[in-house]
């Protein structure tokens, strides 16, 4: 009913009253007594109630009322067959729920990782020196960055920054905090405003004026009790005083996991520097400039710089990558494969549903024919089916939405903060309106689709034949073909999905084993960082750690203690160093040997149980005064000394003309993967701590019992030595290893769940269709038995039919599955590998299920008394 009609009807009462009053008045004017006059007027008007009803009927929409009827009928139908409804809804819930949950993940992490203004026009810009292959630092020279802004013509603004860690001192406690030094335009480029206070101004970019700081929201909350009065006060960062000028909004942390920002104050000579790629750069593109245009403009401009400054910029190129894409370079394929799996599960759910509705339709053939015979129009019947299917789809959609809320909450709470702080957008994971809408729309489409399919099918049904048919016993040839097609497609779908899920799960399992080469059990880890002011000399650093190590090793129950500059599973890549091998001709610039470099103390290898393959380990006598030594990893030997004995060979860091001393290789250790995203263990060069001490080191302490119980004693030792040293990241290595592959585990678990759902859905589906199609032939089998058919032959016939359909499905699916797994393998490099065994295993499984699905109902059919089978009209 529209607004116009409603208003007219609202006024109708008054209108009728006026009408009767007028008529009465006229009658009175004619000399009739008032009572009589009113009576006559009323009589002439007719039945007031009916008039109103008729007027209302003009406006009422008939189809809407019929719709209500249809919905009520559909509800009754669904209620009457709870098994069908239950299975159908559950199937869809699985399909839609999986999609909603995964899309929530993808939506938050890939589509909205950062809460920045116009994210798509933000790019990371960096330079490549041509000799950095495999070394992905993404840095830029400050002077080059400034030139790109003024000269490349594609950027509205370029801002530079660099990570910096601080020791934050509050009330006698010192804590290392990761921060970032940023140029004044940083927040403007990102389009973010501080929640409290102000951002930086250009004058603060000069050395001497840069002692101001912006605090991250969670740091502010945890360390400063959310005190707004902190604005304007000074805090101590690495023994320098900084005035707090602002607090950043809650979710802001760029670059992750930075928690405070200071101005990037470069001296004029640093600003003009081109030789050192010392900063990172982030740029906002001019309106209408695409990333492709930017890349082209950058490489053209880099060439001009090359010509202008051949000394520093020779061989240097520049690249831009969308900020959105940069972060998830490694994980995008994982997310996408997850999403693909979710879509496949939905497909499978739909295929199952198609079979279910089809089976039900056959059961209802008579009812439909009866309705049609009694005069139900095609359209009315169609609406009935659409109502039914849409109703349960919507039901499923709502249930799925509810479930996805729960799943997402579970997902968010099940991963530790230690890990998720590295994931921009993680806090934004939620079932948002878009996701919900998609779930509901998906449900609606599925429902409408099945509704229409049912109608098309029912429309073809022959009325008379259907009414005469005594039951589902006699199937028409067309229907038999359709059913066969369903079996075939079900088998094909199932195989493709199972193979893909299987391969991915296998890949994830392998990935979660990446750290198999080390033994993190019973190892305590503590990060120490020495204040740079008091430890400016290498000997000071070495002395501190020597004393510390001796005291820690003396603790009762401690087996071994070691230090490492960057231990495996730290989620931080090692620094890469170029080196020169003694006696080899100097290679081309982009073939300079390189290796990941790590500094460790002698007990590092035994603490992590990394086996020594040749030579000797470091000892405490490998000091400054002794010849420089190094231990190399097996993969480094394989790459640079494949056919030689590496122990005893000499190398030096830098190019052939570098002045650094020659280093003798004294040992070879087994390979250890640094981080899960490295496709393989990278060649690693280990240096003895006493020959290259560093202020920040991680303690790895192996003990006989619970390693965390030593945390307090270690802290005591450190504070006794120097109360200005910051301790951080106290925990077990076991936990860190687990956390570091957190996302892999979650992906693996999700994939596993999908795999199970897929397996269940496809097996139930294949079984359902096949057993149904055999059960339909009970009548025929009965006749054959009655006519004296050999049960064995009969069984062979039925099984052969099932087998034939399954094999057709497999023949279709195997090449598809093969191609898809090749695609998967190339998309998730290093995770998935094509495995024909899995293909064979799942094919076998499906054949088995098919045979069982055919065998059981066939045996039942043969067991039935022929007379009963014949009579089951």
């Amino acid at each position: 009913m529209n607004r116009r009609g409603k208003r007219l009807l609202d006024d109708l009462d008054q209108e009728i009253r006026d009408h009767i009053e007028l008529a009465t008045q006229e009658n009175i004017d004619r000399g009739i007594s008032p009572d009589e006059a009113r009576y006559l007027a009323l009589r002439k008007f007719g039945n007031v109630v009916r008039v109103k009803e008729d007027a209302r009927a003009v406006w009422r929409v008939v189809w809407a009322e019929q719709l209500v009827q249809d919905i009520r009928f559909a509800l009754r139908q669904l209620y009457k067959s709870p098994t069908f409804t239950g299975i159908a809804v559950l199937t869809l819930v699985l399909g839609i729920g999986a999609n909603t949950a995964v899309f929530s993940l993808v939506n938050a992490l890939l589509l909205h990782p950062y809460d920045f203004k116009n994210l798509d026009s933000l790019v990371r810009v960096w330079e490549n020196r041509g000799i950095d292959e495999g070394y992905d630092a993404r840095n830029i020279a400050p002077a080059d960055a400034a030139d790109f802004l003024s000269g490349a013509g594609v950027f509205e603004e370029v801002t530079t920054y660099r990570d910096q860690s601080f020791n934050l001192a509050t009330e006698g406690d010192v804590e290392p905090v990761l921060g970032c030094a940023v140029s004044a335009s940083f927040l403007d480029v990102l389009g973010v405003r501080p929640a409290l206070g102000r951002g930086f101004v250009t004058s603060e970019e000069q050395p001497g004026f840069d002692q101001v700081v912006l605090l991250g929201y969670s740091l502010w909350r945890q360390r400063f009790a959310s005190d707004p009065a902190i604005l304007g006060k000074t805090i101590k960062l690495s023994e320098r005083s900084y005035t707090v000028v602002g607090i950043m909004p809650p979710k802001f942390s760029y670059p992750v996991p930075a928690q405070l920002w200071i101005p990037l104050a470069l001296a004029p000579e640093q600003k003009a520097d081109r030789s050192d790629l010392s900063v990172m750069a982030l740029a906002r593109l001019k309106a209408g400039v695409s990333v492709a245009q930017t890349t082209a403009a950058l490489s053209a401009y880099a060439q001009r710089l090359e010509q202008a400054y051949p000394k520093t910029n020779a061989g240097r190129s520049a690249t831009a990558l969308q900020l959105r894409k940069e972060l998830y370079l490694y994980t995008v394929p994982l997310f996408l494969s997850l999403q693909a799996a979710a879509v496949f599960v939905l497909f499978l759910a739909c295929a199952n549903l198609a079979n279910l509705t089809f089976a039900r339709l056959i059961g209802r053939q008579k009812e439909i024919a009866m309705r049609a015979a009694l005069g139900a129009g095609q359209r009315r019947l169609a609406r009935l089916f659409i109502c039914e299917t849409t109703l349960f789809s919507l039901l499923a959609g709502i249930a799925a939405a509810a479930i996805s809320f729960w799943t997402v909450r579970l997902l968010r709470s099940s991963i530790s903060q230690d890990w998720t702080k590295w994931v921009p957008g993680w806090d934004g994971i939620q079932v948002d309106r878009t996701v919900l809408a998609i779930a509901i729309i998906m449900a609606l489409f599925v429902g409408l689709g099945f509704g229409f399919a049912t109608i098309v099918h029912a429309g073809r049904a022959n009325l008379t034949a259907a009414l005469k048919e005594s039951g589902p016993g006699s199937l028409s040839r067309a229907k038999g073909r359709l059913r066969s097609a369903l079996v075939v497609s079900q088998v094909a779908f199932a195989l493709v999905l199972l193979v893909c899920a299987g391969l991915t799960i296998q890949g994830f399992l392998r990935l979660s084993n990446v750290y198999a080469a080390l033994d993190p059990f019973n190892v305590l880890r503590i990060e120490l960082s020495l204040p740079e002011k008091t430890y400016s000399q290498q000997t000071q650093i070495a002395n501190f750690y020597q004393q510390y190590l001796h005291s820690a090793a003396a603790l009762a129950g401690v087996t071994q203690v070691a230090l490492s500059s960057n231990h495996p599973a730290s989620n931080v890549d090692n620094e890469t160093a170029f080196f020169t091998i003694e006696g080899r001709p100097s290679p081309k610039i982009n073939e300079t040997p390189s290796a990941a470099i790590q500094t460790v103390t002698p007990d590092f290898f035994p603490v992590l149980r990394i086996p020594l393959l040749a030579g000797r380990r470091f000892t405490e006598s490998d000091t400054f005064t002794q010849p420089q030594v190094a231990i190399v990893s097996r993969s480094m030997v394989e790459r640079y000394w494949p056919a030689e004995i590496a122990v005893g060979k000499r190398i030096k860091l830098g190019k052939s003309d570098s002045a650094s001393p020659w280093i003798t290789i004294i040992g070879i250790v087994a390979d250890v993967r640094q981080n899960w995203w490295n496709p393989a263990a990278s060649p690693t060069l280990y240096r003895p701590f006493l020959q290259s001490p560093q202020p920040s080191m991680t303690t790895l302490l192996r003990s006989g019992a619970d390693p965390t119980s030593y945390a307090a004693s270690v802290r005591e030792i450190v504070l006794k030595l120097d109360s200005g040293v910051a301790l951080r990241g106290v925990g077990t290595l076991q936990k860190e290893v687990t956390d570091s592959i957190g996302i892999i585990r979650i992906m693996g678990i999700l994939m596993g769940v999908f795999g199970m759902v897929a397996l269940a859905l496809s097996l139930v589906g294949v079984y359902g269709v096949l057993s149904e199609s055999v059960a339909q032939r009970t009548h025929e089998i009965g006749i054959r038995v009655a006519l004296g058919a050999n049960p064995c032959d009969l069984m062979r016939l039925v099984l052969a039919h099932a087998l034939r359909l399954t094999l057709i499905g497999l023949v279709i699916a195997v090449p598809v599955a093969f191609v898809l797994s090749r695609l998967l393998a190339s998309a998730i490099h290093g995770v998935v590998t094509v495995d024909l065994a899995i293909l064979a295993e799942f094919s076998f499984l499906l054949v088995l299920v098919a045979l069982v699905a055919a065998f059981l109902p066939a045996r039942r059919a043969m067991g039935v008394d022929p007379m009963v089978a014949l009579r089951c009209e």
Partner: protein
Amino acid sequence: MSTEEKERLELLQGTLDLLILRTLLLGPAHGHAIAKAIEFRSDEVLQVEQGSLYPGLHRLIKRGWISAEEGTSENNRRAKFYRLTAKGRKQLSVETNKWDRLAGAIARILRPTEERE
């Protein structure tokens, strides 16, 4: 008084709409006026239950043939006035034409001889 003595005719289905349209051709009118006009112009032969006028009016509004607006009646009362729309005017001529043909056809069937002679 005299109305009761006269022979009254039931209205044919669908003709009420035509009569309303025709009446409104003379100008906008409120419900009671339309009822009276139809009665008066048919020499009070047609027996229209005045109430049935209203669902008819609603039907015509829904089709867009007439529109309703607030106005003041002859005795200064607020009342709903109905007005023929351009679309309604067109429809009236179509309907009238149709009616003429129908009436002519029926007449020819009922009195074939008279017609021919």
